[in-house]
């Protein structure tokens, strides 16, 4: 999928993408104040004096946010800078009360790291992380509350964000999608960001440029601001890359600028040009001392990190014998991985993986719900597998039992009992059915004996139908083979 190529009249173009992810840090309070950062509260109900930039108010760094940023850096295999500096990024906007955003500029808390993308063919690819820094979020301007005035909700003002900047290592919309999904997965495993793009707790700026295949230099890029879903990011990149190719193909030039993605039209449009770009006048915030971490603290945080998706995937492959693709599907969400591990405990891992991926995920997709809301618990699914393993039900019947579990939420044992779905393993009963079918279909028997093997399947089907699907398929098969042997 790295071969995302746009074919133009003058040749083939490749797309170069770097992403800046803004991830809201999970913490009890904001980056520099004691106000809560919760989503969905009454407007202006979570605003401290500091968040409203009242005169004489001073920021005090929330060390929990620092820990979370360091943990994220460690999760991205990145260098932790023991000394970092908060700077002021100066510009005026009505929902930015201080007149500056406190951010990190020259000296971010986290330096270079690596994120591993899981590609659909089961292979992986490394994407470089350039840096991670902490910064304050702004408030929210509400332009639709009044015909002439703008209202402002400062609840988000001062909320702690991590800005995670990738290297320009991505080569197409699919890459970008895989990157964002992997990033979200890591953040969620770490518990440092909930990754809810629709609630705005994870947003993405996309830097996009194109170049002819084989060119070494990067061409002029455009930045698409504040895209808020994985799908939109992919759409925006696809559109933007095509727009740039069209420009070049028609003898035009790409102008460096900031663009906005229009989700309704699926297109991007100019937000501000390079000439209109702000001069942010960064300088170290004199209200805050340089942030100095002790190596011991960082090591303590490292030691306390949970198992992350890459490690879990490796373990699923090495210890449980899963294929690379299945493993990466299962570890993508921590809740799925946990569910799977519970099902697989003491059972055949591949069977468990199959049931979770092929059956459970299908149902969840259809119902459009998360695994946490699954109508079938991991315990129940485990019991269902046990019923197959001990021969109580056949694999085919199991699918019906599973559907009944989805519909009723009942225990599989109870369903099997209630609906009389137990497998018939009584050789006499099966032979009776086999004989009856053979007796009823002498012409077809003749065909089999003449060498038309495929007909055997038809007979199995007949017997299964006669037994309500409960006959042990292997026994039916064996018997039929024996009795139809020429």
């Amino acid at each position, binding site marked *: 999928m790295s071969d995302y190529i746009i074919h133009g009249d003058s040749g083939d173009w490749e797309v170069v993408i770097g992403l800046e992810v803004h991830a809201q840090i999970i913490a009890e309070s904001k980056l520099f104040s004691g106000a809560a950062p919760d989503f969905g509260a009454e407007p202006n109900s979570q605003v401290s004096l500091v968040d409203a930039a009242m005169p*004489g108010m001073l920021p*005090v760094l929330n060390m929990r946010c620092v820990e979370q940023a360091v943990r994220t850096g460690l999760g991205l295999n990145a260098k932790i800078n023991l000394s970092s500096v908060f700077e002021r990024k100066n510009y005026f906007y009505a929902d930015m009360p201080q007149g500056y955003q406190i951010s990190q500029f020259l000296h971010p808390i986290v330096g270079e790291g690596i994120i591993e993308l899981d590609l659909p063919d089961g292979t992986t690819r490394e994407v470089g992380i350039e840096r991670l820094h902490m910064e304050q979020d702004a408030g929210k301007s509400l332009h639709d509350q009044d015909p002439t005035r703008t209202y402002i909700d400062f609840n988000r003002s001062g909320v702690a964000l991590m800005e995670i900047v990738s290297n320009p290592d991505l080569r197409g919309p699919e890459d970008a999608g895989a990157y964002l999904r992997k990033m979200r997965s890591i953040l969620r495993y770490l518990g440092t960001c909930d990754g809810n793009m629709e609630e705005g707790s994870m947003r993405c700026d996309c830097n996009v440029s194109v170049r002819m295949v084989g060119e070494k230099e990067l061409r002029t890029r455009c930045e698409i601001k504040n895209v808020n879903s994985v799908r939109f990011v992919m759409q925006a990149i696809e559109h933007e890359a095509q727009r740039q190719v069209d420009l070049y193909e028609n003898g035009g030039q790409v102008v460096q600028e900031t663009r906005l993605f229009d989700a309704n039209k699926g297109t991007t449009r100019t937000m501000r040009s390079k000439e209109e770009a702000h001069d942010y006048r960064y*300088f170290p915030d004199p209200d805050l001392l340089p942030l100095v971490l002790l190596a011991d603290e960082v090591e303590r945080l490292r030691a306390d990190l949970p198992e992350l998706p890459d490690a879990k995937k490796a373990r699923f492959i090495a210890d449980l014998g899963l294929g690379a693709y299945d493993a990466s599907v299962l570890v993508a969400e921590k809740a799925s991985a946990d569910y799977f591990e519970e099902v697989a405990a003491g059972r055949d891992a591949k069977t468990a993986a199959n049931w979770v991926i092929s059956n459970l995920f299908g149902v969840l997709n259809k119902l459009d719900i998360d695994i946490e809301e699954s109508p079938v618990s991991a315990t129940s699914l485990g019991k269902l597998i046990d019923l197959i393993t001990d021969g109580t039900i056949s694999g085919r019947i199991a699918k019906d039992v599973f559907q009944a579990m989805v519909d009723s939420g009942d225990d599989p044992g109870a369903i099997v009992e209630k609906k009389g779905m137990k497998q018939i393993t009584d050789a006499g009963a099966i032979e009776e059915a086999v004989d009856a079918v053979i007796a009823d279909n002498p012409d077809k028997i003749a065909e089999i004996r003449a060498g038309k093997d495929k007909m055997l399947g038809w007979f199995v089907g007949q017997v299964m139908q006669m037994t309500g699907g409960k006959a042990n398929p292997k026994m039916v098969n064996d018997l039929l083979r024996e009795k139809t042997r020429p």
Partner: protein
Amino acid sequence: MSSAPADLTIAQAASALAAGDLSSVELTEASIAAMTAARNLNAFITETPELALERAAESDVRRGHGESAGPMDGIPIAVKDLFCTEGVLTTAASHILDGFVPPYESTVTANLRSAGAVMIGKTNLDEFAMGSANVTSYYGPVKNPWRAADGKDRVPGGSSGGSAAAVSARICAGATGTDTGGSIRQPGAFCGIVGMKPTYGRCSRWGVVAFSSSLDQPGPMARTVKDSAIMLTAMAGHDPKDSTSARVDTPDFAAAMTGDIRGLKVGVPAEYRIDGTPAEIDAMWHQGEKWLRDAGAECVPISLPHTKYALPTYYIVAPAEASSNLARYDGVRYGLRMPGASLDEMYANTRGAGFGSEVRRRVLIGTYVLSAGYYDAYYVKAQKLRTLIAQDFKMAFKQVDVILTPTAPSSAFVIGERLDDPIAMYLNDVFTVPASIAGLPGISVPAALDQSGLPLGLHLIARPFDEATLFRAAHALEQAANFTARPVLVSEL
């Protein structure tokens, strides 16, 4: 009693209160009367007599129960209108903070309040503390209570001009000030009182309207060194709400004033002898050396080679920080708002109308020095110089315990002078700025009158957090100078 209540020092008033010779209400009533009588000075932006009497009565009740909070309990003080005071208009002497009544109390004034001090009002200042003459206030200039032979109104110095005038005019015995480049010490010298700037980080900046965050420091203004020490003990202390507040204990500074400076080493920096300094200021400086020597100290010449860069450094760092600190005054949430057709127009209208010319000048300078392409040449270079200036002092303090200089290169000048020449105005702070740049404690002690009858101050600088030594040396200077001159008060006219 020999003195009128308003004439008492903090220490004297504390004794009188303790002895039951005087109640806080009586003392406060006298202060309020003096404040009312001296309105022509324009020292106060807001008077809070009812609040003062209420708190004075509470103090008397405490004392009646034997629960006095200490030497500040029941003492009327004035508060520079840069400190946010809960429920009381806070203006920073700027039009842009019209009608701003904070729902919170600055840490320093809260500390003073818990020590029992009684606020009688909010004093005038240069707008956002930007100035050395208290002429940039939206609420008009403050007059210096001192009169020279020519009878012309003099500036009280700035930016804490209202506080200095109030203390000098015997309206109250103490007032809070803030010092960024000399804003406590220079008006102290101009008004013939003691002005003390603590070490950066000694007093919390929380709730003080910010001018230049890396330089601003609240401090006491009083008529004696001992009173300054008493006040600072009540004001200071680590504050978790200010990340630059130092984690150091607050000693009883007054108790550290032993009166003994034998063996103390006093540095006299060669670089502070600058061309054009009036001879009488030089003479006073020499006299200061002699006084300290006579008291048993040893005076040694020292060199602070980067001194000449202090003022230019200051006038890059302070405006740079100010340009950013003042961005919050945008008409959106509080204070003045001048409507406009767009957001940008509303900003321009509000800030254009709300800020005076000196504030606008500094915001422009600050914006310029932080701009892309100029940042390295100005701001980064200034930061490097700042380090060098601090190192000068560090080296000097290996050799000496305190440094003696004049406080200002002139006495109080006539209101209206130097307005057309900001550089001449900025030169007022030439002796006070270096210590600010280095974050060091400094104190101005009234030492003499010049030939026109206006007070002059001597300035002492000490090591970081060594205010105890600073007060001890200042006390010796004060004893020797025996400065008993006083301005002609309204009540005596």
